[in-house]
């Protein structure tokens, strides 16, 4: 652990950031029926304070170190305290989380105005804020895992906010379970590191153990295979949380939750936590196999999700698949950077900047905004989510339209919006990795992104209203419009020099000679958006129908079969075995034997005197035989 010198960031701010939302959540969740609307106030208030605190934290720029806040587990050989690791990475992420969190809180004031269970909603939001803060600040992997699970819980609660709806109830369950599968790997990874590093899971110390010839460097030399396994296991956690293939299925379903939730959790922050974690522990990804796998999975997810997004009709789902695709991008960037580092092309790790983190950062603003914008649309259209039942919203909802358009442009990577810079950084990393496939697939994804986003914009906002509800749509109130506007501003400027410097955005220092990348990205943007615009302009129904894409490559169906055929069949089979054989062999058989012997011995007691005398006589013979003729020989 670095010495706590004058540069130490102090304990006050992290403590506020962590505990305020925690107590806010606790108070609201336990007492929301007594508190009623006061709970909304508590929650929003705490989010505002947190935002201010994170701003103050940004001001401590340059200070690094881990401060411990509270003990958690402290036994010989295993210390894991509640701590806060403060560096550029966490400060920047902290800002994103609290800023978008605050905006979503404010937006929700409007969006959830009429919901009966508003207090519960805000309580869960606070819980989420707490856990997300925790992930960002966590200085050791145990704590990271703890908050990791807790964001899972808050996501579960928020997706299942309208639990009366069967689809919501199923979706929240699915989200939690899929994440659990990822966490299964995450935990194994942590355990392997725990064992290899003699019980020290502090992230700083782990890095030192790799870099400065600690025990892990030793293992890496002798047994690189296990490091690969560790890296991939940690990655599995990210696969779950960041919804990478093959665990991506939960994220689209998670759109069952209220739209602000989708914006905050399932677009901007929580799903990005996987990437954040990967970058945090990227020093573990030091074997080619691990790096290639990560990059490959990310790339595959990006492409796959983009393909699916092209054929969706639900506005939130399109955005969800887009999020998937962008997350794939980020993951690919992590892998690509590591690949490059292993080959010695580029600087390793998160310092001073990382393309994945940079994309995460920009993406958070515009994707949050897109979701909030879609929320505004849905709100305005009386909870209509099908883009084919909208249309012409441009006129009814100008603010929404413009902000949405800015977001779309940022997402597509229109220069000089923030998305352009970060996407270029990612493609650059892919290019640098030396793997052509990554780069080509990345470019293809970019084209598809442009394609489906244009499609969304064209179908929903242009043309004329296709239904009554779209026709009567009106602009949203100020409390909802304000966050949109703020986010739009960030979507444009956040990648720009001084601004991103202040926000510590992890912007990678540009490597020279990326003309290829630059031109490619502009070219695919044009190809995608123009083809889409031409194709969808003025259409009332989808002109192309690709069932495979529309049905998401049948992943849900395949998984359903797997669950049914494997897990349920296995459970049925095992239960049968357990009932019949285990219980039978251990309990029923001995019982039956004893019972049989019992009734057999009862036959000796037949009540016939002659039988008894015979037994007695036989007994005498037996005893004499035993005592006189057998035992003396044995002794």
């Amino acid at each position, binding site marked *: 652990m670095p010495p706590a010198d004058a540069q130490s960031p102090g304990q006050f701010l992290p403590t506020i950031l962590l505990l305020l939302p925690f107590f806010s959540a606790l108070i609201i969740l336990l007492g929301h029926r007594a508190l009623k609307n006061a709970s909304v106030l508590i929650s929003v208030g705490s989010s505002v304070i947190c935002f201010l605190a994170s701003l103050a934290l940004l001001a401590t720029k340059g200070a690094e170190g881990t401060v411990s806040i509270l003990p958690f587990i402290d036994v010989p050989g295993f210390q894991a305290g509640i701590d806060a690791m403060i560096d550029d990475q966490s400060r920047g992420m902290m800002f994103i989380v609290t800023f978008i969190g605050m905006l979503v809180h404010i937006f929700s004031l409007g969006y959830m105005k009429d919901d009966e269970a508003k207090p519960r909603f805000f309580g869960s939001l606070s819980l989420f804020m707490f856990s997300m803060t925790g992930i960002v600040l966590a200085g050791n992997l145990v704590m990271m895992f703890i908050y990791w699970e807790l964001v899972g819980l808050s996501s579960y609660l928020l997706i299942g906010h309208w639990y009366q709806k069967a689809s919501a109830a199923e979706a929240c369950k699915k989200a939690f379970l899929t994440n659990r599968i990822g966490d299964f790997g995450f935990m194994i990874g942590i355990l392997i590191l725990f064992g290899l590093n003699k019980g020290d899971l502090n992230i700083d110390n782990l890095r030192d153990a790799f870099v400065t010839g600690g025990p892990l460097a030793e293992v890496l030399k002798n047994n690189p295979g296990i490091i690969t396994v560790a890296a991939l296991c940690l990655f599995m956690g990210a696969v779950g949380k960041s919804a990478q293939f093959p665990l991506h299925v939960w994220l689209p379903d998670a759109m069952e939750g209220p739209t602000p939730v989708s914006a905050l959790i399932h677009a901007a922050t929580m799903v990005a936590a996987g990437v954040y974690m990967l970058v945090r522990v990227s020093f573990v990804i030091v074997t080619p196999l691990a790096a290639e796998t990560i990059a490959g999975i990310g790339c595959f997810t990006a492409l796959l999700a983009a393909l699916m997004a092209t054929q969706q009709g639900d506005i939130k789902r399109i955005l969800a698949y887009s999020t998937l695709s962008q997350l794939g991008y980020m993951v690919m960037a992590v892998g690509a950077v590591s690949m490059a580092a292993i080959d010695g092309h580029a600087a390793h790790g998160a310092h001073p900047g990382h393309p994945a983190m940079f994309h995460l950062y920009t993406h958070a603003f515009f994707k949050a905004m897109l979701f909030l914008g879609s929320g505004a649309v849905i709100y305005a259209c009386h909870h209509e989510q099908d883009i084919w039942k909208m249309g012409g919203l441009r006129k009814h909802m100008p603010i929404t339209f413009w902000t949405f358009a800015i977001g779309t442009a940022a997402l597509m990577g229109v220069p000089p919006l923030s998305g352009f810079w970060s996407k270029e950084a990612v493609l650059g990393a892919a290019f640098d990795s030396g793997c052509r496939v990554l780069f080509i697939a990345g470019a293809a994804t970019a084209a598809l992104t442009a394609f489906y986003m244009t499609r969304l914009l064209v179908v929903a906002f242009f043309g004329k209203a296709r239904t009554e509800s779209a026709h009567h749509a009106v602009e949203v109130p100020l409390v909802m419009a304000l966050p949109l506007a703020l986010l739009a501003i960030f979507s444009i400027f956040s990648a720009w020099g001084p601004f991103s410097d202040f926000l510590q955005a992890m912007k990678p220092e540009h490597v020279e000679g990326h003309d290829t990348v630059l031109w490619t990205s502009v070219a695919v943007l044009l190809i995608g958006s123009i083809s889409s615009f031409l194709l969808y302009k003025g259409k009332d129904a989808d002109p192309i129908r690709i069932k495979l894409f529309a049905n998401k490559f049948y992943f849900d169906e395949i998984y359903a079969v797997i669950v049914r055929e494997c897990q349920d069949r296995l459970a049925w089979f095992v239960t049968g075995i357990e009932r019949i054989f285990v219980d039978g062999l251990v309990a029923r058989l001995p019982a039956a034997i004893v019972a049989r012997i019992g009734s057999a011995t009862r036959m000796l007691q037949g009540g016939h005197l002659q039988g008894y005398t015979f037994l007695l006589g036989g007994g005498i013979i037996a005893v004499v035989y035993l005592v*006189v003729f057998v035992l003396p020989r044995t*002794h």
Partner: protein
Amino acid sequence: MSVFTLEASLALLGLVLLLLEAFKPEISRRTLGYTAMAGTALALVLLPLCGTQLPEFMQPWHQIDTLALFYKGFALVITLLVLWLTLECAPYLTRFTLDGKLAEMFSLPLIVCAGMMWMASARDLVTIFITLELVTISFYVLVAFARKSALSLEAGVKYLILGALSTGVLVYGIAWIYGATGSMNFDAIGKALANPATSKSAALFGAAMLLVGLGFKVAAAPFHMWVPDVYQGAPTPVTTFLSVGSKAAGFVVLTRALDAFAAPGSIIGSEVQSLLLVGGSLTVLLGSLPAIFQTSVKRLLAYSSISHAGYLLLALACGSGGRFDIGSNGIVAFYLATYLPMTVLGFLALGLMRVNGQGEDLGDFQGLAKRSPLLALVITIAFASLAGLPLTAGFIGKMFVFLSLVDHGYWGALTCAVIAAAAGFYYYFRIILAMYTTEGSEKPALTLTPLTKAIACGLALVILALGVYPRPLQKVLTPPAAAVVVK
């Protein structure tokens, strides 16, 4: 006053009671019963005060050591309880006896008691034979005493034939032991058996026959088959007496015989120990397993009695080489002391059921907790103790046995004991369960006199006290250190 006088007086009191009954038939059975009880109680009080010095002529065949004194006290206690039980059961018993009289049921136990007390002191085979026969013949009479009951009579005949058969075997064994060792006295037998010149096969044959004879008395398998039939058929107080008194007497004799046969250095020691081990293992199993399906509680208690005899045999099989100061003889004594209150309580319940016009089957026990909560509680304690649940007396006894077996590494026997104890859980708990079920609670409530309640509670308390704080009894039974050295 010497202990011997006490015993003689007890027998004399029995005779006096007989005479009273014969010549003063108008005397009520209560008077008779209470007189007998008073006499026994008095003897019990006087026992610790008596001197233990013996005249010289008695010393070859009589001894008064700790064990003897303990068993004398034991005999007095069980006799007292049996006498009281007889009074309790009198209303029911008199329906089956000659002219509704019970006088002999009060006087014979006194004589049996004297016999058992003498037996406890016996140190030669002649004395053992005589006292054993005194007890046995008295029991022939007592078992068949309810002669208007076909079952009692049947039990009497079975006991008679098998008992006489075992007597024959016993005498034959005595003959061979005498032939091999040239003496009837245990000390001399022990000395002769320590001499390698003694004929081993003759000694073994004699010991085998003798042990068969004694095994019959204590209900060791495979000589146990009379027990369920006889216990079931005999009047309940007599069954109690048989189950506790006669068994204890058998074990005293066995203890004394084994002290001679299996003393360290004996040429037949290891064979005898092995026989006990095999017999004990067989006995616990043959006592427990058939009991699983018993629906007659009285018969079940008989099987239980067999099973407990098995544990006692296993304790004896561990011999004198154990690690406990109390010694295997002490363990047997301890076990019997714990066995007394629980068995008596069990039979008391049966007796009370009969007196209140109910049967002895499992079904009759249903709902007892409603009909008589106190009785149900004490019986629960008694059966828990029989099953060997900790914090009851029964557990301490069993633990001693288990400890000895493990100490000697007798794993096979330990396995049998564990299986038997497990089966025991089943059949004792079955009765407990029956008592607390709601079915059958509509039957008339049982009436208990205050004395009955007091004695039942007292016995239950003894069970608990011995289970929680057995140290005093252990102290009593631990032979003085000097005696251990002499061994």
